[in-house]
């Protein structure tokens, strides 16, 4: 798992350094960026280890805080995302604030 931590950290640092470019309708993953808010960098860096960030806004209409909690749990328990409890909490708070669009 130490190996992954290195890669995750690299992605995290890369994201922090990259200027966010929000371009609609693009197929350029590097141009995908999440909304501003506390926890954005951690969320971007950890989620995009395995998948592009477009999954997050596209799922927002189906999500409330309980939905994101289930998803973060699924990513940890089923898909093996190596998040600490504190990181999972930060990500959950960020997603619930920025991407909970369930009506």
């Amino acid at each position, binding site marked *: *798992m130490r*190996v*992954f931590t*290195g*890669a995750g950290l*690299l*992605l995290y640092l*890369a*994201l922090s350094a*990259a200027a966010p470019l929000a371009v609609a309708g693009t*197929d*350029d*993953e*590097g*141009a*995908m960026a999440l909304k501003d808010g506390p926890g954005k960098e951690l969320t971007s860096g950890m989620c*995009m*280890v*395995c*998948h*592009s960030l*477009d*999954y997050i806004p*596209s*799922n927002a*209409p*189906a*999500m409330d805080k309980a*939905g994101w909690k289930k*998803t973060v749990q699924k990513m940890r328990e*089923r*898909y*093996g*995302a*190596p998040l600490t409890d504190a990181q999972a909490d930060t990500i959950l708070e960020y997603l619930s604030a920025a991407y909970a669009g*369930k009506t």
Partner: protein
Amino acid sequence: MSTRRELMLGALGGLLATPAWGAADEVQISAALSGKSALIRRSYRPPNYETPLADLAPLYTANESFFVRYHLALVPVLEPGEWRLSIAGSSLKTPLTLSLRDLKSRYEPVTLAAVNQCSGNRRGLFMPRVPGVQWESGAVGNALWKGARLRDVLKQGGLGADALEVWFSGADRPVLPATPVFQKSLPLERALDENVLIAYEMNHAPLPRWNGAPARLIVPGWMGTYWMKHLTEVRVEPKPLESFWMKSAYRLPAGAFPGAHFASQETPETAPVTELLVNSLISSPATGSRITRGKNVQLAGKAWDAGAGIQAVEVSIDGQKSWKPATLGKDVGRYAWREFSAPLDTSSAGTLEVAVRARSRDGSQQPRALTFNPSGYHNNIVQTLRLEVT
């Protein structure tokens, strides 16, 4: 076997030319799906792209516009000459290793037309909304598949008396070692069906890279999740496959839907998705279209089921109060879709509330209301659109 896996990381790719997790032999940056026409992106990585409705108008969906569905981000590029398929398992007497040339030359080639549909097709149209890839109506297509019968291959290896399931693995891989690799199984009796193929051609061309090259499983009448792409291993086993992708994903509430049973994978609470349900799509006109009064307009689309065959397609233009039969096109095989068309009455101005419903020869018909399930599978409700006659 050399397996080159492509990891699409956009602008970050340059920073990760040598991935620290070591899962990929070679990393490339790709901003689009090579060899594919413009598709609707549902996610970039893993790549999930659906076919625009206009591209579903032909009887056979073109390879370059056929939908793309991956669970895992490391998509393999397999060299056809070096690809090998392992046929093994505790319930197989003699293991085999086949090259693509073996598969093509040792077994009778079979060509059949079949619909490949993602279980989550139209998930994005669920109300209330459910999480997952937000597919609309284009995670489906119809193609001519050519390959060897799985049962011819398995019979050469010799089946043990205790065989229960056939397990399938492909070459796609997750980024993290802890993520479950994509594996699926079929009940033995289905795996031995004469229509189940290990296909190496699609619409008379080698399988496209994004649709499972160089060989994939074809399970006519069953959902796309069983059609393992980039097939590398087939195992005949006396026990149920304990895979996340069987036990947790692609599950339905027990008894909620019709379709074949998969007894060795069922629990009292849930059952795996299995067969397609009767369904249809309207490829034209597009919803919201304006039509000049008196103009000759044909409603056109496709209808399909799990293989019993389409008995009738009916069209309503008055908000589902009255129905008239559509004309069915040529039958090109029980697992293919059937084209339909119907003239629209555009003699008076106003809104047309158009609806289409298909009925299978097995007696089932598209329902009006959605059967909710938490993962958003089996959305086969009556298709509707609204047209303005002016």
